[in-house]
């Protein structure tokens, strides 16, 4: 019988060298095919963006990467900024700091002037989308591409802002679970304090993923792994010894309700030919 320990061991037993090597090849090939002149990364000081930065530097060289630190005064902890700066230095990557609070608060005031209340979730999403705007502006400036930092756990449970941190060109660690990202980070030489820092989108003061979601990735990841990599139905996952059975339904619900964040917007099919997102099946690079 499969146990929580088995799942955790299998999850953490992944081949770090192979994962790193193949992700780097993915970035290298994508950059080459797209003709991008620069890889633009939003560096938060967290484990995901730090890992992506390390992989991208290994793939295309530090001179082809720029890191943007996009903190919000009063929300982004100082330690994140100093961690991000240290990491950019360690990997020899050029970096710029742009504070987003003037932009995000201006959006907030414009909405409030029209009596649209901006609560912390709305303001959190405004921050994530502000960062997206800045990343794409810099990417346009260089004729580059935005390298995203979403991991498989977040993408599955929809723990990201649509067109915010979800608005990127590629997701190099999008098939790597959060607990694996931490180990991959260590393998790549990301400092321990970043690799094992508690996850947080830092969209309001004190926000942490574990308290917001009500569960830790140590609980979430083995459940996702059983559902996705073992293909077990939720009822079978609940029978796994050591698993938190009380959160299986919560996780499944999050996966299902967030599918809209993972798909191209739906289009009603009207024409006789192919329709985007329905029966339009083309490779990304169309050589015709």
């Amino acid at each position: 019988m499969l146990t929580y320990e088995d799942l955790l061991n299998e999850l953490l037993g992944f081949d770090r060298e192979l994962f790193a090597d193949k992700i780097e090849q993915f970035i290298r090939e994508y950059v080459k095919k797209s003709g991008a002149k620069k890889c633009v990364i939003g560096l938060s000081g967290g484990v995901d963006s730090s890992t992506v930065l390390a992989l991208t530097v290994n793939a295309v060289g530090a001179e082809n990467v720029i890191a943007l630190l996009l903190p919000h005064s009063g929300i982004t902890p100082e330690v994140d900024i100093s961690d991000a700066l240290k990491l950019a230095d360690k990997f020899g990557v050029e970096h710029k700091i742009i504070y987003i609070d003037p932009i995000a608060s201006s959006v907030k005031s414009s909405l409030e002037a029209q009596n649209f209340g901006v609560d912390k979730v709305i303001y959190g999403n405004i921050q994530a989308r502000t960062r997206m705007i800045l990343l794409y502006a810099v990417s346009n400036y260089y004729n580059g591409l935005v390298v995203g930092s979403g991991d498989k756990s977040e993408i599955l449970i929809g723990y990201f802002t649509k067109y915010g941190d979800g608005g990127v060109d590629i997701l190099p660690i999008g098939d790597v679970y959060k607990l694996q990202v931490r180990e991959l980070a260590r393998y790549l030489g990301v400092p321990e304090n970043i690799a094992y820092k508690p996850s947080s989108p830092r969209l309001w003061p004190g926000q942490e993923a574990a308290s917001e979601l009500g569960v830790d990735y140590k609980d979430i990841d083995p459940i996702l792994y059983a559902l996705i990599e073992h293909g077990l139905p939720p009822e079978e996952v609940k029978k796994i010894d050591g698993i938190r059975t009380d959160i299986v339904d919560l996780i499944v619900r999050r996966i299902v309700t967030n599918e809209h964040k993972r798909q191209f917007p739906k289009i009603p099919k009207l024409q006789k030919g192919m329709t985007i997102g329905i029966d339009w099946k083309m490779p990304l690079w169309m050589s015709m």
Partner: protein
Amino acid sequence: MCLKIVIPQLNFKQGAVEYNLSKMLDAIAKNYEGECLELYVFPELTLVGYQARDLIYYSAKSLDSELISKVIDFMSDYPKAYVAFGFPEIDTEIKGVLYNSYVIVSRDGVIGHWRKTHLPTFTVFEEDRYFRENTKLYPPAEIGEFKIGATICYDAFYPELVRAQVLLGADIILVPSGSPLQSMKLWEPILKSRAIENTVFVVYSNHVGYKDGLLFFGKSRIVGPLGNVIIEAKLGEEDIIEYKIERYDLLYARRVRPTLRDFRSTDIENLVKAYKMSKL
């Protein structure tokens, strides 16, 4: 005369027929020596690249097309060379019907032709959307003293198909493939088993590089008739491998592990009986 197998493991582009064709022919021009007979083995759907999706409709060619003639003309400068490659084939008689096909071409024309039978349509694969499944048996191609058969990718998962070609005399089985990383471990026992159970050489040629997020893992290889991996190309990257096939390896294998001598027609008869009794 000796026969050298050459596998140029190259990163072909999705849908870029002209680009892929010149990449394929360049590899022959660059590596041709002309001492032995030389068989260049390219992967499944070489010319359209694997995972070309609906671009397949735009890239399909018939066996009597200009594209095939172009390859034949090219080979006239390389008299000892043979090229094995894949492409989406349009049926010349029933227009619009496509096959996932594989050919061997020399300066004398098309000397070998196979169409895929088992079209993977699961997980990342959608071949049934494009191709008609083939149910015919194709004879092996003759190159010098060797007879060459081919089972295209997933077809090699069906030992009956390989056995049929061996019964027709094939002593080298080509397995052109378009296989992503998650299938990598499955191929190891499959290729070795097909070699051992028939005491034949198995020549595996796979795509490499990322196609829309899928990494094609390469690891093209030549497996000897006792299941020994003689030579293997790199994981996921361009590479080239070659090996001179020795007839003696076949004879020796058939002496020490005579799976062909010990094959019985009842093996097949009972299989047919069992199939008729089954509910599949």
